[in-house]
Structures are given as C-alpha cells and as structure tokens.
C-alpha cells in the first residue's frame, strides 16, 4: 500500500485488533442478557460451534501457506485419520493431532515429495 514504516502497524491496529475485538465486545454486551440455562444460549452455542467447524473445514480444504502445496486428499486424510485416532483413544487430543501430522508427513514422502 504505502512505504511508510507505520502502515503495517496501522493495518494491524485497525484491520486486525479492532476488526476482531469488536466481535468479542459485542459478544460481552449481548451475552450479558442471556441466561445460562436458556434455550437462546443453546442456539447461540450451535451457531458458534458451526462457525468454528466452518473455519476448520476451510483451514483443511482451502489452506494458505505451505499447507496449500500438499494435495487436497492428503490434507483430508490427515484430518480424518487424526480424528479417528482421537476417537478410539478415548478422546485424547494429543494422539489425534500427532497421528494427523504423521499421516501428512508419511503421505508426503510416499508420493515422492521433496
């Protein structure tokens, strides 16, 4: 955009900090009126959960950076096997994550990636 040294900092403050914290602040005011055992809260939880799940699917299927260079099937396999291991090990997150990463690395060497 511009070559000014402060430009990126201004971007981080406005397009980063304000753009994310504004949602958290709205959440504080809107959440203050919710009852902990109310139906509305369950719906809000559903929306939040679906949103995070949408982010997860995006990070796997449409990633940025080095992950984008891995084939789509390998990324999907890594996530699916990772989740399967997580499920059968009695929901141990660390095993799920580790096996997902191992699948990605093993798959990359199998298809002859360098």
């Amino acid at each position, binding site marked *: 955009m511009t070559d000014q040294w402060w430009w990126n900092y201004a971007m981080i403050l406005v397009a980063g900090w304000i753009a994310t914290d504004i949602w958290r602040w709205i959440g504080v005011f809107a959440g203050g009126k919710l009852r902990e055992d109310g139906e509305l809260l369950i719906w809000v939880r559903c*929306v939040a959960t679906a949103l995070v799940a949408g982010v997860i699917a995006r990070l796997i299927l449409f990633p940025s950076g080095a992950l984008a260079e891995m084939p789509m099937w390998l990324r999907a396999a890594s996530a699916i096997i990772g989740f399967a291991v997580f499920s059968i090990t009695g929901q141990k997150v660390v095993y799920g994550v580790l096996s997902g990463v191992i699948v990605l690395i093993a798959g990359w060497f199998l298809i002859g990636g360098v």
Partner: protein
Amino acid sequence: MPSEIEQRDHRETEQVEPQRVWFFRGLRAMVSIPALILTAAFVGYAGMARASGLSLGETLLMSGLVWALPSVVVLTGAITSGLGMIPAAIAVTLASVRLMPMTMALIPVVKDGKKSNKLLLLFASHFVAVTAWVYAMRNLPEMPRHGRLAFFVGFGFGLSSVVTMITGIAYVMVEKMPPLLSASLFILTPIYFLCSLWSAARFNADKTSMVAGLVLGPIFHIYEPELGLLWTGILGGSLAYVATRLAERRFR
C-alpha cells in the same frame, strides 16, 4: 482492576478464596497439552510471517492483539497482497464473526451475577479464541462462580503472553522453515480444533452443529467466499438446533 478485586475480597466472607488465588490457578492450568499444540501452531505462523516479510514487531503485535489464529492468517494474507485498509478490515471482520457467538455463550458461564465488572469482562473477552473457549466451556461450570472470571483471565492472559513470546523467539531463530515442517505445523490447528471442539460438545445439538458446519463450510466457501462463513454459522447452527429439538421430541 486490582482495586476492584481487593474491594470484593473485603466484602466477601473468609471462606471464599481471594481472586488472585483463582487467577494463579488459571495461570497454572494453562500449562497443558492444548497450550503446547497451540504454541506449535503459532511457531508455524512465525515461519509464515517471516516468509511474508512481516517484521518481528509486526508479528508480535499481530499475535498479541488479534489473538485468534485463523484471523491472524487472514490479516497476514491481506497485508502481503497489499490490500487496502478497508478491504482488509472487512476480510478480517468476516473471518472473525465466530468470536461473537463464542463470547456470548461464554459470558453467562464466566460472570458472577451482577457482581462482575463490565470492564473486566471486556478485558477478559480479548482472550476468547478456540483454545481458551473450549477449555472454559468444559471446565468453568465445575468451578464456584466467584472464581470463574479470575481463573479465565489468568488462563487467557498467561496463554496469550507465553504463546506470543514463543512466536517471537521462533521468528528470530528460524530463518527459513522447510516447507514440510511448515505444512505440518499448519495442519496442527484444524486437527486440534476438530478434536477439542468435539470433546467440548456437551449436548447432541453441539455435535450436530459441528457436523453441519464441517459440511456447509466448504460448500458456502465455493459459492460465497466472503460471507460464506457467516451463513455456515447461522444456517448450520439453526438447522442443527431445530433438528436436535425435533429429534428429542420424537424420541421422548
């Protein structure tokens, strides 16, 4: 903020532990496997930030101030591609909508009736991101009300400080990250989110919402890259809510 906490200490009976005890409990609880995974994911981000030409100061500020990895990645992409401030702000805003319902759902759990200070709640809300949220939704309900907010602040503040510092260290130490390592660190986030979100799901409605989001997310992304996430949340969440309610009525 400290004066408010001290005042409350004097008001309450002696059996109630002081707020700083709960704050330190939160700090201690932060030393955990999820924190380790999140740290590794941010180390991966440090490599991406350096490769994108961000300075150390910019990387640190972004990690600490935005504090939600997917939004951090979106902003980095926006800065690298030379997007203007308004389009970048719109992109990040749309990518961060999830923080609102997440915070909304957390507030009734974390606050102590009318006693909780609004400013402290606003400060605490900054630490809402998947890791702290999942941990809080799972563990806070078992804690006494008076300690929850201080515990959450301790947990969130500790986590974001440590992770931001380690991101800085990784930025300085890793000059160039091998692509395979970088990709491995980047797959950590979604798999970790996937597992921890599932383990935080308390009701059938939560699990159904998760499946709906996973299916609708990519579909909406293809047809509506910008607003797709928003629709995924509203539509997926509402569908899951209604479906679970109907199923419960039928099987009751």
